[in-house]
């Protein structure tokens, strides 16, 4: 890994911020917002960082923090990675704080979920219009890097009921209901997060209605904040646990 050549930022000073987005207009808008509150920014030319390694190398040499959109290749075909992959490495490996942004809630399940455990702050594109949200997000990420996860990101071992399987443009998706999470919503994630074999839709469909255990951040406020880790490969069929059930009254 490249050695940092930029001095660590002072507390409450987020330093120089890189902005990455395949929508240049949106990147400029974020730049203006941050400049309004006195933050120095650099909008990254994606042509200069076509690969994940090049992007990480660039970031570690030039900036103290990163604001990055999930979509980096939708409008710019020369980029071989997405924003969630990049931020996972930048935050998790390089310990550089940052905020991931998204204009599409649908991107969260399949693109962001595999990396959400290493990305403390995800905000919507609308929220980027508030520079304080961006600055506070960077600070929150810095705190997690320094001190570990807060209560809303602590994980607990719970059952997850696989409600649906389906195909998306980026592969097979599973929707699971998280046991013990206080809101009645499903969590979407790539089926391969559970096991590579579920990249096959038929294999994934065959496990709907079954339950697996994983560690989930039950303190998450919204579905977009949920993530899981350490999924256990054993699946349990709950119908085998209740011998006296009569389906007709379901």
């Amino acid at each position, binding site marked *: 890994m490249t050695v940092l050549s930029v001095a660590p930022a002072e507390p409450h000073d987020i330093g120089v911020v890189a902005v990455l987005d395949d929508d240049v207009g949106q990147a400029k808008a974020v730049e203006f917002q941050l400049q309004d509150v006195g933050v120095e920014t650099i909008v990254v030319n994606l042509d200069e960082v076509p690969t994940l390694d090049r992007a990480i190398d660039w970031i570690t040499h030039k900036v103290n923090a990163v604001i990055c959109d999930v979509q980096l290749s939708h409008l710019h075909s020369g980029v071989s990675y997405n924003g969630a992959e990049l931020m996972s490495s930048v935050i998790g490996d390089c310990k550089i704080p940052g905020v991931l942004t998204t204009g599409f809630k649908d991107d969260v399940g399949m693109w962001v979920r595999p990396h959400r455990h290493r990305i403390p702050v995800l905000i919507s594109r609308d929220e980027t219009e508030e520079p304080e949200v961006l600055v506070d997000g960077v600070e929150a990420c810095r705190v997690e890097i320094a001190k570990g996860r807060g209560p809303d990101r602590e994980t607990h071992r719970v059952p997850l009921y696989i409600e649906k399987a389906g195909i998306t443009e980026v592969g097979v998706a599973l929707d699971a209901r998280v046991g*013990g999470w*206080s809101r009645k919503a499903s969590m979407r994630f790539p089926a391969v997060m559970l096991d590579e074999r579920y990249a096959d839709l038929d294999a994934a469909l065959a496990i709907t209605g079954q339950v697996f255990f994983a560690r989930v951040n039950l303190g998450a406020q919204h579905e977009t904040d949920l993530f899981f880790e350490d999924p256990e490969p054993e699946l349990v069929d709950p119908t085998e646990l209740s011998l006296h059930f009569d389906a007709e*009254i379901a």
Partner: protein
Amino acid sequence: MTAELHVIDVGHGNCAVVTGVDWTLMVDAGASAAVIQTIEYLGLDRLDAIAISHRDLDHARGLVPLLSRRDLEIGAIYVGADAAKNPSAPETANLLVALADAKRNGRCLVSRDLDDTFNSETLSGGGVSVEVLAPSFELAMTGPKGKSSTGSTISSNSVSAVLRVTLSNGRRVLLPGDLDGVGLAELLGRGADLSADVLVFPHHGSLSTVADERAFAAEVVEAVGASTVLFSVGRSAKARPTEEVMRGVFDANPKAEIACTQMSSGCLEADAELPDRLAHLTKLPAAGRAGCRSCAGSMTIGDLGIEGPNVATYQEYIGVVAKTPMCRTVRP
């Protein structure tokens, strides 16, 4: 330390935490983060027992996050079997699997044995006595979807465990879960003593399965003889408690003290604006604190009776906020 019973505001559902000397019991675990927050607030690292009145999710779903906390020791969970629950429904599936996992991996004892033949000493401790008054062994053995001795269909609510908790100061609290007409008839038919000082009213003050809610409420309150009636309710479009139930409570005891965990839409319309702060609540976690949906919020029953919310500020709050406070307008 004296024994206390905390009625937690979990929204629509139930949860009570009973703390004695080096001993803690939870009765029901509603689906709210307030359950875990209460454990943390009270500084508990062990629940000696958890008794789930019946398997409805607003009483049992909170078991899953409790079991997930490895830093929380759990002695035993008592929860009845229920053939009326669909194991393919996501929340029920997760609950069943979590319970099976806990039992098979030795996390804690998980027992379906919770009826009137249950050895009450098992749930008692720390200066607190707990009796299981219902369901009867016979009703529990038949179970939901079966027929009672009078030919009525038994529902999940009919087999609700009815627990009477007697604190070290002698104060008695009746926790009847979602007891319905079938369960009540069975209890009264065998002459069971239901007497208690405080009643947490069954089924959140709304009983769509009984023909006459008012008569049911009066019958329950008269049988219990409670001077205080609490309602564990969520703030939703459907008013809980219903006005008919409230009338029945006052039919039996015109002087009954009343408190609801959250503001009933029967007292203030569901879409009405709420205040931005609730000064009268106790410090106990309450699901209705966020959004200021609580009325009395979480309450503690201890040496001094109902301890908190602050009575004066609470009464003032009701007078200012509730348009038609049933605890006043319905009172004869």
